[in-house]
């Protein structure tokens, strides 16, 4: 997991065309990484990386970062070297004040490292001022000097600010390290090639003993191993320099050879404060960047959906086959009777028991010598027998709420072969006083229209 894989994932998600099914299939075929989202995402990136357009955004971005960082590192190194040369320049009139150099290799690094630590703690905030004042932050401003096409590619990249902060922090440490190496090289170079008289000078009334105690504290990490790299009280006394008089003191001139001993202290201070400690901070920033990449991986837009598609089972309840569109027959039946006669040759009730048939007929004020239950619990033979007994005009009651089945149609077809006229009369339930709903009668009308026989009439 690195910045490259993060950017590949970012680019893949931007152009993602994978379906839910494909992602779930991926999740199921990569069971080893199940419940390990980062590994799952990395595996997914590896699987789909080939789909990305060349050059990869990650490559463009990495090469841009590498180029910018290298340039800034070189500049920082040169600046460090020049600063070192400047600080250690000895005109012969005045000795080199070690305090300037100490400020550059001890206090300034300590101060910037403290700021770095604070910015590390506050790296989660998108607008971290401390990050923005870092020279590395301005790296992105160099973007404007890049070729137009590369500029366009990179402008589209919207990296998580947390990640940007950590990239800036880490790269700042590299630049600071380069600067420190420049300083060290300048120190070693100047010491080797020039005879430098080191001294220390301050307006504050600090005794050589106090200054020695302070230097001893500064040198706490190497004083046990390299005691010669800690200036002695004598050396401090001999190298104290007062500007008044505009010339070197007698004592300084007498101990001129000893004054150069300061270089060891300065070299160790540079190595420890500006290089080793800075390197420690760099390692911390590398660790922080790794964590930020990990976090950013999971918060990248689209990752939540992707992970849930990989890990959540696809549940479906749909039918795999489309239903044939049902086109109802909306023809209305034209052979309609609006009122009943008082008597019929035969009265039949489709699935209506005889006792109920009597009640219905009575309520309709219809009489008939022959009342039969047909359909319902009858066998087909029983129905045939009733048909054989039927003649003339038949009033056929049907339950309006029960839709006509083909069983009824078969019966009706057989009946009309035998009789002169059949009036189909849908009736409601006894609770409804045999009244019907118009939509129920419509259902019967539609069914009769499919039969379309001149002997069949519908009572509405």
């Amino acid at each position, binding site marked *: 997991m690195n910045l490259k894989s993060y950017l590949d994932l970012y680019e893949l998600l931007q152009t993602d065309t994978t379906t839910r099914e494909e992602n779930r299939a991926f999740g199921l075929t990569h069971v080893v990484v199940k419940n390990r989202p980062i590994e799952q995402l990395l595996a997914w990136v590896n699987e789909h990386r080939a789909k990305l357009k060349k050059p990869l955004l990650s490559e463009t971005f990495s090469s841009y970062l590498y180029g910018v960082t290298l340039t800034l590192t070189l500049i920082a190194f040169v600046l460090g070297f020049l600063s070192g040369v400047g600080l250690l320049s000895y005109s012969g009139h005045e000795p080199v004040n070690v305090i300037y150099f100490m400020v550059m290799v001890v206090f300034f690094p300590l101060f910037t490292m403290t700021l770095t630590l604070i910015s590390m703690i506050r790296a989660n905030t998108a607008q971290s001022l401390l990050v923005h004042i870092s020279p590395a932050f301005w790296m992105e401003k160099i973007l404007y000097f890049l070729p137009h096409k590369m500029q366009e590619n990179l402008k589209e990249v919207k990296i998580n600010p947390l990640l940007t902060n950590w990239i800036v922090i880490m790269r700042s440490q590299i630049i600071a390290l380069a600067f420190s190496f420049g300083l060290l090289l300048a120190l070693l170079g100047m010491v080797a090639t020039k005879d430098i008289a080191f001294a220390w000078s301050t307006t504050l009334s600090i005794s050589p003993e106090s200054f020695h105690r302070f230097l001893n504290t500064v040198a706490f990490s190497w004083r046990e191993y390299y005691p010669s790299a800690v200036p002695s009280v004598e050396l401090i006394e001999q190298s104290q320099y007062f500007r008044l008089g505009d010339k070197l003191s007698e004592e300084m001139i007498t101990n001129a050879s000893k004054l150069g001993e300061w270089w060891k202290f300065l070299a160790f201070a540079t190595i420890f404060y500006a290089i080793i400690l800075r390197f420690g901070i760099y390692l911390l920033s590398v660790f922080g960047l790794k964590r930020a990449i990990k976090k950013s991986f999971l918060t990248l837009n689209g990752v939540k959906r992707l992970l849930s598609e990989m890990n959540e089972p696809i549940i479906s309840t*749909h039918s795999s086959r489309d239903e044939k569109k049902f086109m109802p027959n909306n023809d209305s039946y034209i052979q309609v009777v609006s009122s009943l006669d008082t008597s019929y040759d035969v009265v039949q009730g489709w699935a209506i028991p005889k006792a109920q048939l009597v009640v219905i007929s009575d309520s309709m004020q219809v009489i008939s010598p022959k009342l039969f239950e047909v359909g319902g619990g009858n066998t087909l033979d029983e129905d045939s027998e009733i048909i054989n007994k039927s003649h003339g005009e038949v009033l056929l009651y049907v339950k309006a709420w029960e839709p006509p089945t083909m069983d009824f149609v078969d019966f009706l077809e057989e009946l009309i072969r035998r009789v002169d006229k059949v009036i189909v009369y849908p009736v409601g339930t006894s609770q409804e006083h045999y009244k019907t709903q118009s939509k129920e009668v419509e259902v019967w009308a539609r069914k009769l229209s499919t039969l379309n026989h001149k002997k069949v009439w519908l009572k509405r």
Partner: protein
Amino acid sequence: MGKKTLYIKPQESMVKKMNTAHPMFAVVGHPNKGKSSIVSSLALDDSVQISDTPGTTTKKRSFPLKVDGKILYELFDTPGFQRARRVLSWLEQHDVPADKKHEVVQMFINEHKEDVRFSDEIELLEPIMNGAGIIYVVDGSKPYGEEYEAEMEILRWTGQPSMALINHIDETDYSIEWKRALGHYFKMVRTFNPMETTRLQHISILESMAQLKEEWIAPVKASIKLFEKYQEQMIERSSAAIARLLYESVSTVEQLSFSSKEASKEEKEKIARNYKDKLRELEVSTQKKIEQIWNHDHLKKEQKLLAFEGMDLFSEETASVFGLTKKELLITAATSGAVTGAGVDLLFAGHTLLLGAGVGAVVGGVGAYFGFNELSEVKVLGKILGKRYLEMGPMENRNFPYILLGRAIYHTTQIANRSHALRGVIDIDMDSTFKEKWLRDDLRKALEKYHKKFRSGKEMEAEELAEYEGLIKGVLERMIEK
């Protein structure tokens, strides 16, 4: 007619039965008794054709509950019996002991496969003979009739485990007489109204179906658990869609270029119109997405829009029903303003003697009051560069996110709680008490933090949007029936 005694050869359906590992259920019955409604409701699928015209279903249709392609159980919607007496008459011609009756049914299928007269019976009997349990559906709002007995007798001949479901299409109740009759044919009789199905009723019916056969208990129970997971997934996906709608709607910016020196009134009106249309489009597309998530993608759009008539996003009525009242707005704005002010106090370690909080509250509150009817200022940009354009957005109205969110939550709860068997126009009955149900004080404060960020027009982090989604998810979990 004399009864026939036949030698019956081993049937292929037996082989099929052995090979079918998952439970299957065939929903059968008389025509127009709500079989498709029941299937639609149990399968959470609104694509099933339902109408009061008999014969709507002409072919059996399978509705498998699949998890990653693996079928846990399968429901079959079937056409109704058309010539039940004729089929029974054919079956009864064969004098066979009870253990061979199902083979006679299979023989009927084999012999009449090409016979159009029995196409409906073949369609409904085939899944049963392939091992499906029987769910016999009757309408308990209409009286029992003897004509049903032929159907039930045929089903008994199949020898498959069965249960009866009493559906109530209308309000009248004949369920006592139905239960008495059905009790003779089915070991289990349940009442189920697909139009008013809750998740608990759904689960209860599934549990009953599992009881039909011992070996079906485990897979159906697994299916029940899965349905819970499914609901969770749907809530999560809906929350994500709503969160994105809010973010995009509040932060969206509309631009319109113009060439004259000053933008005309028409141009200003046009940008305002475009801006509103864009927001409406966002809402409509999110609603469609949510309907798809909940398998309600067959709801007709125009019908839904009609239901929203007079409840336009920008109407006063909408604001009063879904949004915050002026008082609530003041409190919310004052609280969020105070939060900013308190930040200043913290920065100076309280040395401002809480002055920051006081000033923040006043400024925020007054701003909200005056911003009640403001959407977004129409800005004229690019004057210096010569390429002039009008810009509207991000949304400045503090109430807007609450209106939009209220509407989205209301719509989602309506969709989520709606039975898949319903085919009518969705009844989005605006209820002013709804806001009180979903929007609590603490939630309002939590939401305001994100609304403020949306209004700033800054790019939102996926993490922040996920937090906002979490808040919406919590509301939906509360509002959607368990």
